[in-house]
C-alpha cells in the first residue's frame, strides 16, 4: 500500500510521518504541494509543521495550494486523508473538516505528552483501536484550540464526529476537549496531537500512535 505524505514549504514532520508509514508496513510516497499529482496513492497524510510559516493563519495559505485542491476532490470520492496538527489546520481551512483552530487559550506553544480518549474506532484511521481506549501521544502547537459555533459543536457531537478527545488535562483550551474530528464518512480525520511521534519506544512517550497508520492499511485491505 502506498501512502502519500505531502510536503509544503515549511512542513516539518513530513519525515516523521513517512517513518510512521514505513513502520506500519506501508510505502511512504513523497508528494509536493505545488504539483497536481497524487501519484496514485491509496491514502494521504498532511503532516505537521508551519506551512508557509503559518503566516496569516495556520494552514490558510497551504489550503489554497494546487495539491490540496486535488486532495479535496479525491476525499469526496473516499480517499482516506489524515491531517496531523498543521495538516488538520489545512483540512479545516480547505473546508474538508468543520471548525477552526485558533490561538491556544494560554497563548503559548505547548509540547507535552498527552492522554487521548479514542471515541471513534471505526474511521479509516482509527480502526485498530478499541472504542474508549486511552492512548498517550505528544501534542505540540500554538494554535491548537479547536473552535466552532456552539450549534455546530452540538451537531458534530450528535453525529459522533469527535474522533479523539483530550483526557487528563486540556493542553490548549479546545472546545469540549476536542482533539480530533472526522468527516461524515469517516475517511478524513484531522487531529492536533502527533501520532507519528509515538511510533518507537526509543524516541516517543509510547508506541500508541502507530495505530493510526496501521488502521488505514487494514481499512484498505478490507475495502
Amino acid at each position, binding site marked *: 500500500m502506498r501512502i502519500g505524505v505531502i510536503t509544503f*514549504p*515549511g512542513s*516539518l*514532520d513530513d*519525515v*516523521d510521518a513517512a*517513518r510512521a508509514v514505513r513502520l506500519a508496513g506501508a510505502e511512504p510516497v513523497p508528494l509536493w504541494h505545488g504539483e497536481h499529482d497524487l501519484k496514485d496513492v491509496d491514502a494521504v497524510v498532511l503532516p*505537521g*509543521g*508551519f506551512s*508557509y*510559516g*503559518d*503566516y496569516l493563519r*495556520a494552514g490558510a495559505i497551504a489550503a489554497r495550494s494546487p495539491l490540496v485542491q486535488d486532495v479535496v476532490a479525491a476525499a469526496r470520492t473516499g480517499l482516506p486523508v489524515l491531517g496531523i*496538527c*498543521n495538516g488538520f*489546520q489545512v483540512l479545516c481551512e480547505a473546508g474538508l473538516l468543520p471548525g477552526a483552530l485558533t*490561538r491556544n*487559550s*494560554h*497563548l*503559548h*506553544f*505547548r*509540547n*507535552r505528552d498527552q492522554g487521548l480518549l479514542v471515541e471513534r474506532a471505526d474511521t479509516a484511521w482509527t480502526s485498530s483501536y478499541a472504542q474508549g481506549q486511552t492512548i498517550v501521544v*505528544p501534542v*505540540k*502547537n*500554538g*494554535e491548537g484550540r479547536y473552535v466552532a459555533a456552539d450549534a455546530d459543536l452540538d451537531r458534530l457531537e450528535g453525529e459522533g464526529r469527535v474522533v479523539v478527545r483530550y483526557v487528563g488535562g486540556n493542553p490548549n483550551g479546545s472546545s469540549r476537549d476536542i482533539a480530533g474530528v472526522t468527516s461524515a464518512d469517516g475517511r478524513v480525520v484531522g487531529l492536533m496531537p*502527533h501520532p*507519528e*511521534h509515538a*511510533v*518507537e519506544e*526509543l*524516541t*516517543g512517550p509510547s508506541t500508541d500512535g502507530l495505530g493510526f497508520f496501521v488502521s488505514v492499511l487494514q481499512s484498505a485491505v478490507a475495502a
Partner: protein
Amino acid sequence: MDTVELAAKSPDDQQPWAELGLKDDEYARIREILGRRPTTAELAMYSVMWSEHCSYKSSKVHLRRFGDLPKSDALLVGMGENAGVVDVGDGWAVTFKVESHNHPSYVEPYQGAATGVGGIVRDILTMGARPVAVMDSLRFGAADAPDTARVLPGVVAGVGGYGNCLGLPNIGGELLFDDCYAGNPLVNALCVGVMKHADVRLAKAEGAGNKVVLFGARTGGDGIGGVSVLASETFDDSADGQRGPAKRPAVQVGDPFTEKLLIEACLEIFAADLVTGIQDLGGAGISCATSELAAAGSGGMAIDLDAVPLRDSTLTPAEILMSESQERMCAIVEPGKVEEFLAVCARWDVLATVIGEVTDGDRLTIDWHGERIVDVPPRTVALEGPVYERPMSRPADLDALQADAPPSSSADLRADWLAVVSSPDGADKTWVTEQYDRYVRGNTVLAQPEDAGVLRIDEQSNRGIALALDGNARYARLDPYTGTQLNLAEAYRNVAVSGARPLAVTNCLNFGSPEEPEVMWQFAEAVRGLADGCRALGLPVTGGNVSLYNQTGETAINPTPVVGVLGVHADVSRRVPSGWRAEGETVLLLGGTRPEFGGSAWAAVVHGHLGGLPPVLDLAAEQALAGLMVGLAAQGRVSSAHDLADGGLAQALTESALRYGVGARLRVEGDPTAALFAESGARAVVTTSQPDTVRTAAQAAGVPVTELGTTGGDALVLDGLLDLPLAELREAWTATLPALFGSPELAVGTVPAGAVPTS
C-alpha cells in the same frame, strides 16, 4: 557618492570614524593599509569588521590557548571556521557551536532571541551539515523583578518560535537567575548539525571566474550598525536617566520560514555538489561574508553591489554592506553550475542572485552605479584587524570574597531542601521547555529535563550523540580559572552519565567590558582554565563565541563561561535516563562528598550568600567517573543515572524521584548538610538491579561507592532526617515558574507583529 577615485583626491576629508567605534590609531592603520583615506563604504566595512564582535580584538590573544591544545584525532575541522567539525564514527561528522545574542534580546526579547537561534543555525548549515537540534542557555535578573517578567517570556517565545518553526528539536539548555543579569540578560543558543565526512564545506572563495551568489532574504535596513552598536558597545544612561540603547535601535527581525526554505535549498545544493565555498551572513552582513570568503581563498573578488536585491531602495551602499538582514547566505559557484544552483533555489522559492565573481588579483572590489567604492586587501578587513593586549588585574574584592566562607550547617534540612528545589534556579523548568518542540524529526532520544540531550543520527546503526551546556557563574565569580573548569567538568559529566563518550568542546564566554582590567583578568583566567581543563581531559575546543560588554554602568555581570560538551553514543538505545521508573532498585552514590558550600545553590538560596571557594576540581576523578558510566551504560548495568551539581544530592534526588513519581527510602552518612547540599564534583546517583556488579566496576575504576537505599513508595525518606511525600515535593518544585511567568497577561506584547509563535 564617495568613490575610491574621490578618496584618493580628497585625503583630508573629515570622516566619522570615532562615531563608528574606531579608535584613532585604528583609523590611522586603515589609511596606512590603503595608502589613502578610506571611502565611506570602506570605512563602514572596516568599522564593523574591526568591532569587538567580529574581530575578537580583546580576546584573540587569549583564545590562542585553545589553538595550542594537542591535536585531536576526532577533529576534522578546527577553530577558525564557522564551526568545528568532529568525527563521530561510521563516516558521520558532527558540527556544533554556541553563540550569544544578549544585547538584542534585552532590547527586543522575542526578535533578539529568535534571530540568535537563526544565526547559529546558519553557521552550522554553512559547514555542509543538516542542522538537527538546538539548545539554549539563558540568564535573567532576579526572577521576581518586573523587567524579568518583560524579558523572559519574550525570549522563551522567541527561542521557541524560531526553532519550532525551523523544525529543530530543542534538546536542552539552562535557565538561571541572578541580579547581576538585570540589565544584561544572556541568550546563548547552540545548534548541532550532522553530515557525512565528505560533505564538509568551507567558507572559502577559490577559482578565478567562479560566481559569487547571494541567496535568501532581500537586504533591508534592519540591524545596520548592529554589530558595532548593539553587540559591542555598552548601553549608556540617556539624559532622562532611563536606561536604553544609546544608539540607533538596530534590531533584526527573523523569518524562520525563509530560513527553513534556505536550509532545504542549501542541502539540495550540497547534495548536487554545486558550491565550492559557502558562508552565512551574520554580523556585518555582506561586508563580512565577502571579505571572509576572499580572505580565506587565494585570489580576490569583485562585487557589483547594484545586483543585491533590496527590500528598501533608499539604502546607501554603506548601509547595504553593513545590513544585518537575516536569512541570507553567500556561495561561490562555478559558472557551469550557476544555472542549476538558481533552479534549486527557485524550486524552494529562495531568491538567488549573482552579485560578483572571484578574481585572480588580491583585492576585494565593490562597485556601485558603475563607480568603484571599495578596493581593499580582504585579509586586512577580515583577518588582520587590531589585536589588543588589554591590561588585566585581579579583582580587588576577590581575596575578601574568597575569605568570606559560607555557613556550613543547616538549621532545618527539610525546609532548606524545599527552598532549594523550589527556588527559581532549582525549580522545574517545564513551563519553559514545553514551549519548545522536542519531538520533531523523530530522533530525540533524551531531551529536557535529562542531564544531556541525546539524538540518534543513524536510524540503521543507532549511532548517536549527546550534548550538554553548563555555565555556573557563581563558581566563576569566586574563581574564574577553577570555575570555568568546573563548568567543563559538569558538562562532561552530564554527557557521560547519559552513557556517551565525551569528544569535543564548544563555549560561549559572556563577560563584562574588556576595558575594565578586572574583567579582562576574569576573561583570561576563564580561557586559561578551559584550555587547561580540555588538555587534562583530552578534548579539543572546536569553536565558540565571545560576548563582551555585558555590563550595566560600572557593574559587570558575573563572569559566565558557558561550556558545551559533545559526546558520542555507539548505540543510543543504551542511553541512560535520569529518572527512576522501577521500584526495588538499589540507589548508589558514585564519587566522594566534601563539605563544599562556596558558590553553592544552598548558600545562595538559604543564606543569600556568595563567597568562599568553589568546590575542589578533580579532573582525574571526573575521568574515572565518566569512564565508569560509559562502561556501565554499554553493558546495560544501570537503569538510571543523574549527575550531581547545583543543589547537590537534594536536587538530584528530587529530580530523579519526580520524573516518574517513584520515591525511595535512603540513608546518608556523615554530616547531613554536606551530604544533601554540598556541591562536590565527580558525583552521580545511579539506580540498578545489579548493585554488586556496579560496585565491582566502580572499585576497579577507582570511583567511591556509597549505597543510599532502595527505590519505591511515594515519598523520599531519608532515615532519621526527613520524610518528603512526593506530592508535596512536586507541588514545591513545579509551582515556581508558572506562578512567576505563567499568566497569559505576561504574554501580551511578547510576540511582535509579523512573527508567529504558532502551529
